């Protein structure tokens, strides 16, 4: 039916030095879809975006944006896309308006188009009253909004947003979610975004790919992904020895309706079909063992659980590499100005 806005086959990127940042990644994004890449620091999200936006050459595999090949038809690809990096790439030494003017020039907008588009995007991100001030005087959230406005100046067919809400407070984050949903509603733009916030992926995205260590672990709508684990998650804590806990977990795994068991700090999260009817069986199965259940709660399955089950790690536990930490500091310094 509809055309595919992005199509990726076996995309791979090995950096000099041998780090395989993206490994045999394949997926597609339909026109008008909001598609999310969900993964921890260093998963390969930005590297994938760099390849799709012609900023990095794939080591292997192929990708198209609006039907144009990203390695052979770079000019057409660049015209089709807007790119908002995770770097807050706005020029401090220009005003907000001048940043947008420059961006409009880069995309070859005519004078008339500029006169229409610049106020339009400024209005959309609520920066009209600050447009004539130097960006130097902007807060982190304002910079991010300006950066997004710049990405929209030429009405791209596909918008790439790399961690659009990283380091922003809850209020600004919600505003940005609003812009993104409004964009899709008003212009039917295809949006590819990366995030490591579960809530963001869950709320905004039509479909999500979970990416970890360069590979895609699962793709689907948020509810499809959640239903792979069943309806509920029972969170357990045991008393007793490690051996006893292992024994208890083995018994629980053997019960009907149990989909997945994942460790989360001191707790174990057990995905089950139906929490209320399964929980009594847990007690029955473990009551004569060396590790009794000492705490329990029943929750709906969240994307967190899906993530945990596909990667074996919790997002928030993820250690960031030194380089990432450094980049984060640079970003935060810029945010604070």
């Amino acid at each position: 039916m509809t055309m595919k806005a992005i199509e990726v086959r076996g995309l791979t990127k090995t950096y000099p030095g041998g780090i395989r940042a993206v490994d045999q990644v394949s997926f597609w994004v339909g026109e008008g879809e909001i598609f999310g890449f969900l993964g921890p620091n260093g998963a390969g999200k930005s590297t994938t975006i760099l390849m799709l936006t012609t900023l990095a050459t794939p080591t292997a595999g192929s990708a198209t944006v609006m039907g144009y090949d990203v390695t052979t038809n770079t000019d057409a690809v660049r015209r089709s896309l807007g790119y908002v990096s995770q770097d807050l790439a706005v020029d401090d030494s220009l005003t907000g308006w001048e940043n947008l003017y420059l961006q409009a020039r880069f995309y070859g907008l005519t004078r008339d188009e500029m006169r229409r588009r610049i106020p339009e995007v400024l209005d959309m991100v609520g920066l009209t009253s600050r447009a004539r001030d130097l960006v130097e005087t902007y807060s982190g959230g304002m910079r991010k909004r300006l950066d997004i406005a710049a990405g929209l100046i030429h009405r791209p067919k596909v918008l790439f947003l790399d961690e659009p809400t990283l380091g922003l407070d809850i209020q600004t984050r919600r505003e940005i979610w609003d812009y993104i949903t409004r964009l899709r509603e008003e212009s039917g733009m295809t949006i590819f975004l990366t995030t490591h916030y579960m809530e963001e992926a869950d709320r905004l995205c039509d479909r999500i790919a979970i990416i970890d260590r360069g590979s895609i672990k699962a793709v689907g709508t948020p509810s499809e992904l959640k239903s792979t684990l069943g309806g509920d998650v029972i969170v357990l804590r045991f008393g007793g020895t490690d051996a006893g806990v292992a024994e208890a977990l083995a018994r629980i795994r053997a019960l009907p309706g149990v989909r997945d068991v994942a460790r989360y700090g001191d707790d174990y999260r057990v995905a089950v079909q139906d929490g209320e009817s399964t929980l009594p069986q847990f007690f029955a199965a473990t009551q004569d063992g060396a590790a009794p259940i000492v705490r329990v709660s029943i929750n709906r399955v969240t994307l967190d659980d899906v993530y945990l089950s596909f990667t074996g790690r919790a997002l928030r536990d993820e250690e960031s590499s030194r380089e990432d930490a450094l980049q984060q500091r640079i970003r935060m310094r810029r945010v604070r100005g």
Partner: protein
Amino acid sequence: MRTRLAADVYSVFWREMKRFWLQKPRIVVSVIQPAIWLGLMGNLMGGLLDKPMAAAVLGTGNYLSFMTAGVMVMTTLFGGVFGGVSIIWDRRLGLLNKMLAAPIARAAIPVGKALAVAVQTSIQVALIALVARLLGVAFVTGPAGVLMAIGIAALFSVIMSSLSLILAARLKSHEALFAVVNFLTMPLMFTSNAMFPTQTMPGWLRSIAAYNPVSYAVRPMRQLVTGGWDWTVLGQDAAVVAAMAALMVILAVLQYRKMVA
């Protein structure tokens, strides 16, 4: 296609000039520094000129007149070799990726930046001419000579900034770029005819000075200050500077054409 290249070059140039005007202290320093050089060297070397031999070697009875072209080229050299620094900032701040993700001609990046450095250099050289005039140095070739000197300085700045832009594209860090640039500038300066007449140099140094690109810029400019309209000197040296500038721009464009990020 050609109009797009021109438009993109102008975009890059426009941004660089916006940044330049914000750096008012830098502009002031770039004028004060040569003024100090001229004042200091003029006084230090003034005694030299009591000896008629020295005046003959310098080609003028006034050491300040001799130094003016040297100081102009020195300012141009320093302005030029740091022309690549902005690329390193652009890369670090994500502005380079933003440009490269847009459908702009890659060549526009080095050409626009080199052009901005050339214009900034021209402004500085014009200001130095003014300072020199206040210190009593008049171009014997008059205002037309000043304009031609500015033109040669601008071309010379293109040589240095293109080199710096090529290095910056490869080195990717400030530290590395500064190290290479510092390694280059002092020897370039002191093995040229900028500060001292080549006649007083030992033979080996004189042969280096003869082929040093800095000398090719200083010689015609000095000719314009103290000599006169002698086109055998002016034409030949200006042509060499222009040819070197063209070559460096081509190399820079080739370097940036293959740049993805």
